[in-house]
């Protein structure tokens, strides 16, 4: 222990940041697909599907991601399913991000004014045609800013993958901190790296928001 910050430490942090980016992409991809399905389920004509998906969203949004990670990685083996850290982290992020994106997207779909649905109905378009040609293009405009905004949260939340053994940005900082004992310095560096990863996305999100009018929805985490 002791010593001072050197290039190796920075390399180590950089390597951690790569994992952070990789995990974010996995979460976004998996969560995006899951979220799309959830959003459709939430507005399904079937009451049971609506209830089940609403229950899923409530459950996941009420549970810290840390706990989801833990239970996926260490809980599934007790049921006889072995998962690698990458699978566990990917699955957890998918489950988690899907619940949030699903809600954002459902809100966007529902915020397309009711007369638009009716006008499309009046033109004899089928349910799927209404969705694809009239509602979704308008919903995408509404949904883009909060979706991009939520990506920032995904990036920050991948830090919890340390529980399944990933040494991503936050954990690599913690490890260095525990050999240097300089939390002030280390955490400021980490903050700067996170800022560098997140701020451009926030900027894009804001641009989009300005272009498509005020966002009715936005969600974030700490």
């Amino acid at each position: 222990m002791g010593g001072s910050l050197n290039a190796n430490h920075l390399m180590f942090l950089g390597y951690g940041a790569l994992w952070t980016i990789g995990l974010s992409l996995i979460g976004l991809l998996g969560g995006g697909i899951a979220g799309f399905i959830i959003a459709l389920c939430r507005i399904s004509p079937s009451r049971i599907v609506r209830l089940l998906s609403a229950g899923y969203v409530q459950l996941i949004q009420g549970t810290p991601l840390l706990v989801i990670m833990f239970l996926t990685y260490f809980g599934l083996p007790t049921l006889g399913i072995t998962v690698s850290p990458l699978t566990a982290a990917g699955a957890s992020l998918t489950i988690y991000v899907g619940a949030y994106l699903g809600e954002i997207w459902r809100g966007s779909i529902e915020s397309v004014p009711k007369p638009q649905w009716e006008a499309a109905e009046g033109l004899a378009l089928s349910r799927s045609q209404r969705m694809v040609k009239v509602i979704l293009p308008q919903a995408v405009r509404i949904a883009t800013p909060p979706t991009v905004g939520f990506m920032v949260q995904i990036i920050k939340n991948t830090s919890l993958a340390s529980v399944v053994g990933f040494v991503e940005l936050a954990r690599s900082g913690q490890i260095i901190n525990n050999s240097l004992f300089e939390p002030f310095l280390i955490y400021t560096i980490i903050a700067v790296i996170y800022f560098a990863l997140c701020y451009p996305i926030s900027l894009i999100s804001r641009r989009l928001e300005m272009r498509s009018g005020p966002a009715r929805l936005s969600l974030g985490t700490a």
Partner: protein
Amino acid sequence: MHQTLNAAPTSPVVSLKNVHKSFGPLKVLDGVSFEVDRGEVLVLIGRSGSGKSTALRCIDRFEKIDSGEIVVCDHRVSDPKLDLRALRQDVGIVFQSYNLFPHLTIEENITLAPCSVKGISKAQAKEQARQVLAQVGLEDKLHQYPEQLSGGQQQRAAIARSLAMQPKVMLFDEVTSALDPELTGEVLKVIEALAADGMTMVMVTHEMGFARGIANRVVFMHRGKVHETGPAAILTSPATPELAQFVGTGL
């Protein structure tokens, strides 16, 4: 506009029989019955809140009725097993608020349904879009987005969009209230041409002059009931004091 009417010549195109409809405690339609024959233009009038829009919405099954029977072009609208899309291919509806799709150009707004529902070719649909837009005096707005048009122009585009589906019945809900007299006149001509071509129409309007000019039959609604009905002439010589008051204080 070429119309192929399948309905047997004897049966009415639209028929409402003793239709009841409430919103919660509020009784909006209280035993409404009327019929519209082929090629007929029926004008629904009545004071605000008397249930005109609701009656129109029930015909196109945007609202489910509580009891009674509605038949439109041989579709039993009150039947729970109704084929909704088949009904709406036969019925065109234009709303009080124009409801153009804001993310599509006027041309795309108009060609969307003919291409998706009827499966006609893009080129054909575009040609048709040009025709119907010309009918409403908007041929130069083909590639504009709705928000680039004035209210009046948007309403005309919405009418054109409905016309493009070549429906058997057209329902209009106060389509002229955003138009100035000049444009109202133009639309009136369009609608007259449609009527001459055999189009059946039900329209809600507040403009009595317009009603007089276009109506084959007038239905005056009052407190959820059909209070008086008859040819356009009843607007000038009403039989009931309520209709007299309604038109008398107007123009």
